[in-house]
């Protein structure tokens, strides 16, 4: 038998060798041989994350439509073990035992089609209306917890969020959308997408957003009076362009977002004038993918990005008779090469090299009134980072795969880091998959953090069990532990020990009903003080249920997010909360028209998020009560 297989294999290989690329007659291969044939990845190799050895969660465009998610933060908030929290200026992301408020450099990186989208000054990723993409351009969002994603980019300390964008053929026409909702909020969008007969695929989308914002009430720290601030409007403009032709693809995104922030968090001085915060963020990337031989695929890309933050502050320095502007500028560019090869039987090798230059980094504060003068100006040395990595996926037996490799980063700031990862994937039975992984991941400082220190390091161990009860019911469980050392920030921080357990159940019915629920337990302790880490709830739970009411013409979707109690910067307890959102989606009830009506915080619960230490006086940020959102999309 063994002899026969070897002989069959030999004949097959000879057949392959005899025939040049793609010239082989695939119908001449027996089905049994096909089952033993390895495949060479067809799709964009840099985007291949789903096969990762960790407990991946996915939200698709369908879910985004059904639940009426309006921004990336809402999408992430529905995923197992993640929670977003808002402050006056931005939305932040916490997960896997981490959630330091006001910490721009998240420990989970954001990728857009494989491109690292965190800006390089603060290392921030944007999740609200300041995000690079409008959610209508998103095809799927993958959350890959754990450092196994470190191969894809530097700094994925606790995981990566990978966004796969739509292409022109997904849109296949023109869409116009208009939305309005609470706080006098409006959005407008036009999207065109098509795959032309000559093979060129194009997507172009432009959108705007504006809101009057909600009113804030606060106690003036000096006079003790209650003050109302209603000057909280915000707006944005976004453009996204994506084009691909044969192996070439180009994509670019740009967002300009402006937000008025009530002045009181910064100062005790009462002022009617808000801080005006502007974020300008953009990037482009050119990529080329090619199969150079039957078993070698290459991917080359070049990218460049720019971010500018400006803070027009008319109140803080009023006692000094000045109006001040704080500003940061940062630019980055780089290129990478990646090879994926099935050169050796049972092995898929990925090799890559990357160069990144963070340059044009500066921070300044200056008066513009009464005289234009700098009182602080710092220009940072540009930082060049060289990285290489090699990963091998070795299929030992049909049901056992060994995944191992390492990434090496070296920067012109003098830092060197090796991030090894090992994982074992075992199909225990037809229905049960076990993944065991361990690894070390590193993160460089951002410009805004204290530089010159050791790299931040996370050591991780994780056990994942995926079990399919039947075709439509799946259970995923994960047990993990992390140790984070050399924490980077604006000051010296203690090492952290984190432990967690997660479970997720997903079930779908033939009539289109879909149900998903998850629970995550996490416990993070600062080793030096043995105190719980700020803003890290022990319990997070989610329930998502979507039911077709009148076929796909009318669908109701319901979600509950639970965030357990957690501690603020003074180690005072902030109470837990349940949030209920409901969305009704009418799909093609009127020809070519989708109408979505969403009520957020249906029960009108009062709840607050913890904010960073930077804000004087306030420890928490009160969240919205019940709000509604109506959106109409027309396709032609």
């Amino acid at each position, binding site marked *: 038998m063994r002899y026969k297989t070897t002989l069959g294999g030999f004949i097959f290989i000879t057949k392959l060798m005899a025939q040049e690329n793609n010239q082989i007659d*695939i*119908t001449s291969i027996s089905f049994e041989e*096909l089952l033993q044939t390895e495949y060479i990845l067809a799709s964009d190799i840099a985007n291949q994350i789903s096969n990762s050895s960790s407990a991946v969660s996915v939200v698709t465009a369908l879910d985004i439509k059904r639940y009426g998610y309006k921004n990336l933060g809402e999408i992430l908030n529905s995923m197992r073990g993640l929670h977003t929290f808002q402050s006056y200026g931005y939305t932040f992301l916490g997960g896997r035992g981490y959630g330091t408020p006001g910490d721009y450099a998240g420990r989970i990186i954001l990728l857009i089609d494989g491109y690292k989208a965190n800006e390089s000054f603060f290392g921030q990723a944007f999740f609200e209306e300041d995000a690079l993409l409008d959610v209508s351009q998103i*095809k799927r969002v993958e959350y890959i917890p754990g450092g196994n994603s470190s191969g894809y980019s530097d700094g994925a300390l606790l995981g990566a969020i990978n966004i796969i964008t739509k292409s022109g053929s997904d849109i296949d026409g023109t869409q116009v959308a208009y939305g309005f909702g609470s706080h006098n909020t409006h959005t407008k969008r036009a999207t065109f997408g098509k795959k032309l007969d000559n093979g060129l695929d194009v997507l172009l989308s432009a959108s705007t957003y504006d809101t009057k914002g909600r009113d804030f009430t606060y106690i003036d720290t000096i006079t003790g009076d209650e003050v109302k601030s209603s000057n909280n409007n915000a707006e944005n403009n976004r453009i996204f362009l994506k084009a691909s032709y044969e192996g070439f693809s180009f994509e670019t995104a740009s967002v300009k977002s402006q937000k008025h922030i009530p002045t009181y968090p910064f100062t005790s001085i009462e002022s009617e004038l808000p801080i005006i915060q502007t974020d300008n963020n953009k990037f482009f990337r050119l990529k080329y993918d090619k199969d150079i031989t039957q078993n070698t695929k290459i991917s080359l890309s070049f990218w460049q990005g720019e971010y500018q933050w400006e803070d027009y502050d008319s109140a803080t320095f009023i006692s000094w008779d000045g109006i001040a502007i704080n500003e940061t500028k940062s630019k980055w560019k780089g290129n990478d090469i990646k*090879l994926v090869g099935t050169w*050796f039987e049972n092995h898929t090798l990925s090799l890559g090299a990357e160069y990144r230059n963070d340059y044009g980094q500066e921070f300044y504060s200056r008066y513009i009134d009464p005289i234009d003068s700098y009182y602080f100006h710092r220009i940072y040395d540009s930082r060049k980072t060289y990285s290489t990595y090699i990963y091998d996926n070795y*299929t030992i037996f049909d049901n056992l795969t060994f995944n191992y490799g390492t990434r090496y980063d070296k920067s012109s700031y003098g830092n060197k880091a090796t991030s090894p990862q090992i994982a074992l994937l075992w199909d225990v039975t037809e229905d049960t998959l076990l993944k065991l992984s361990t690894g070390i991941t590193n993160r460089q400082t951002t410009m805004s953090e204290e530089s010159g220190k050791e790299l931040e390091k996370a050591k991780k161990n994780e056990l994942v069990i995926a079990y399919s009860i039947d075709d439509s019911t799946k259970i995923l469980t994960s047990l993990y532990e992390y140790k984070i050392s050399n924490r980077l920030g604006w000051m010296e921080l203690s090492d952290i020990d984190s432990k967690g357990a997660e479970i997720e159940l997903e079930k*779908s019915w033939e009539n289109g009903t879909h149900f998903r629920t998850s629970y995550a337990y996490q416990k993070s302790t600062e080793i030096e003080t043995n105190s719980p880490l700020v803003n890290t709830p022990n319990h997070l739970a989610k329930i998502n249920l979507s039911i077709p009411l009148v076929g796909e013409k009318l669908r109701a979707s319901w979600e509950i997010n639970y965030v357990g109690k957690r501690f603020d910067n003074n180690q005072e307890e902030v109470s837990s909360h349940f949030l209920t959102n409901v969305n009704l989606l009418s799909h093609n009830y009127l020809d070519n028209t989708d109408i979505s009506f969403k009520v957020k915080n249906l029960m009108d619960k009062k709840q607050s998020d913890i904010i960073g230490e930077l804000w004087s006086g306030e420890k928490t940020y009160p969240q919205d009560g019940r709000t509604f959102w109506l959106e109409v999309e027309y396709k032609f």
Partner: protein
Amino acid sequence: MKTILTLFITIIILSQALFAKALPEYALKAAYLYNFALLTQWVENNKTDEFNLCFYKKDFGEDSDSLKGKIIHNKELKILDISTLKEAKQCQIIFVRESEEENGSELIQELIAEQILIVSENENINNSHITILRDNNKLAFTVNMKRLKKTELVLSSKLLKLAKKVNQ
């Protein structure tokens, strides 16, 4: 940098000698579809003059072209790209890519009782009969008998035997 480049080139050259059994993903998937066609019986076999292997929105290009003109159940195989219900009804097999999941599942919903074998890349696509999955370095497929019973399609025992999993 130079060392890495040398390493890359060496591996590529070496690779030509150490050829592993591998095919591009979609050439392999096309071969799977060809075998599904051979190993399935269509009770009503006179719907069309040709055997229509259909792809929702986009076919595999060169990888599926090689199947053109092959004879399946005494009919010449034709490749069609479809997107409407009317076009879909002319098909013996419809393949839906994972990337077309959103729009594709809507169309399939309308075809539950038709004599059409639905093949997809994602088990979550409602009402697909066969799913081709990535299984480590190789491909595998699962069969959903519950959904197949709604049609009059008959899958050969060989096909069921080679399936990684048959959901009853």
